[in-house]
């Protein structure tokens, strides 16, 4: 009896240690961002908000943040639209060479991003898409589509197609059935895919290094430059902001995932 109660406790302790190990770098960065020193110092000896001031000042950090947002939002739109359409085709129809198409669609996440980045650079340079934020959008969309395809395919495979049939039998054309029945039911999956696409673009650094030029410097690229050229805690401030954003987005993903499970399982949505 003692053994069965002790084992879970030991598991708890071990789990906590592993989690601490995983998030430790984050807990180092956040205090450094509030440090008064002009070099990376841990633990910080003085408290200052000057690095946040520099971040929001004119040094280019805030502009890069806005640019990354702009690119990520456009990428989310395109990747979700194309990826969802591709998922429908892959899940619903059979055609010769389907496995090959699936492989090609997923290749951007299989091929190492450095190879993709170099190839894209040599392709875009003569097209004047380097240093151009549309070039970044195109490249990031290609990288984000596989994520959307995988997530939406999973959602769609779990969707009971009899619901679409029933909608059509009740008078809805295939388009109306899709809009009023299928999409609302798989919307948590689509939303999750969209969030993943957003993060894939916002956090992306390898392709950004090649395609940023001087006119399209994204936030990750600026952080990379900061690490090489000047290591001040403003990087820590930028990192803390990105961490905060990521946490918020993941909480949102989890909320939507829970909600889609309750609809699919049939557990009550309304507390009685």
């Amino acid at each position: 009896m003692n053994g069965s109660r002790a084992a879970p406790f030991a598991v708890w302790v071990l789990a906590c240690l592993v989690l601490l190990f995983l998030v430790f770098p984050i807990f180092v960065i956040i205090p450094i961002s509030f440090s008064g020193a002009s070099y990376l110092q841990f633990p910080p000896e003085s408290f200052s908000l000057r690095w946040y001031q520099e971040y929001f000042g004119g040094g280019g950090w805030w502009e890069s943040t806005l640019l990354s947002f702009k690119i990520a939002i456009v990428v989310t739109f395109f990747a979700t639209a194309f990826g969802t359409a591709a998922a429908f085709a892959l899940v619903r129809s059979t055609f010769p060479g389907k496995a090959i198409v699936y492989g090609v669609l997923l290749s951007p996440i299989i091929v190492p991003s450095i190879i993709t980045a170099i190839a894209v650079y040599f392709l875009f340079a003569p097209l004047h898409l380097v240093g151009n934020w549309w070039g970044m959008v195109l490249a990031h969309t290609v990288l984000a589509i596989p994520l959307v395809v995988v997530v939406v395919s999973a959602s769609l495979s779990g969707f009971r197609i009899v619901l679409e049939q029933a909608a059509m039998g009740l008078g809805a054309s295939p388009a109306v059935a899709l809009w009023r029945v299928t999409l609302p039911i798989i919307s948590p999956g689509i939303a999750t895919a969209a969030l993943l696409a957003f993060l894939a673009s916002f956090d992306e650094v390898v392709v950004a290094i090649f395609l940023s030029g001087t006119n399209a410097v994204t936030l990750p690229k600026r952080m990379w430059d900061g690490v090489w050229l000047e290591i001040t805690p403003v990087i820590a401030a930028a990192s803390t902001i990105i961490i905060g954003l990521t946490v918020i987005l993941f909480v949102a993903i989890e909320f939507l995932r829970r909600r889609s499970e309750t609809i699919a399982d049939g557990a009550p949505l309304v507390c009685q």
Partner: protein
Amino acid sequence: MANQAVHEFIRAKVSTRGSGEQPESSRQSSDSTVSVQLQCLSKQYGRFGAVRNLSLDVFRGEFLTLLGPSGSGKTTTLMMLAGFVNPTSGKILVEGRDITNEPPHRRNIGMVYQSYALFPHLSVLRNVAFPLEVRKCSRDETKARAMEALSIVKLESLADRYPSQLSGGQQQRVALARAIVFRPSLLLMDEPLGALDKKLREHMQVELMKIKSRLDVTVVYVTHDQEEALTMSDRVVVMADGVIQQIGHPKDLYERPVNRFVADFIGDTNIFDGEIVTTGPLITVMISPGVMLHAESSKNFPIGDRVCVILRPERVRVGAESLNCKNQLEGVIDRVVYIGDNSRVRVLLATGNTLVAKLQNCGQTLSMNAGDRIRVGWDRESTWLVPAPQNVPTPSALDDDGSF
């Protein structure tokens, strides 16, 4: 309690139908307009014929059941009617209009599924209102008609619940309300009561009958449960291997099956294979060397023809009662099974055949045990003759109700 209600309902239906024999393709006594016509309908999947050259007329306002074992083609036929399966050949006409190539959303046919197929993201009211919203009805009219449909199935109080919060029976009723709210002329049901327990199923059968008469809608119902088919239908279409075996009133199917398959599929049956020895209205059939059964038939069976003698278990008399019967056979009791309102006695006859007798439980004590010798008997009129099959399919063991 539900059983009683079902029996009363059947009695009421039988009495309004009128006495006397009716031919197989009998028409409704009140309304004989044809609402749906299936003409030479076929569906091939590669080399497999799921439905083969099926022709059928459905009369307006009738309750028609497609009955058969799995793989008989009944669901495929229903799906072709609904528009979800394209026929390989043949035509479908509803109210005179050829709808064979029309997509499902333009057919204006209501459908109820075994899995209910309620939209989980919409409330009960929104589910029922869906067909009206799709048809661009005004908000007020939509709400009024949806509530009216819900009141027909007696679920107005649950209008704001979600499907996941309802029981199976309630979900089925919402599915029904949704299928009738746009007042279709034809209602299709694909084994809608299959997922319900016995008591609830019987209750829902009565409810469905009442709703159907109230709405005056034509119903095509698919089931593999022959008891359900006999209870609810005006006519039953027995199908096997993609082909219609027999169409008729439940009474016709039970008492005058046209072939061995229908006789075996509907209810419990004893079947004796034999050869015609003497013909005429009074017939003798030899089922075993020296063993003759006496039967009668208005059909012409020439001497030497191979036939099946169909004997229903409830027509068999045992013990002292059998001594008055024209047909008497001796045997040994194999098993006695007590089912509550009746007992089934399985007898191994001297001829090698097995016979099942169904004895109604009237409170008498049954002193029958396995191993006892017993005499069974039945009258000439108690049996029915059908030609022996050449290639008629045999129902699968799983569909034989009550056999052991």
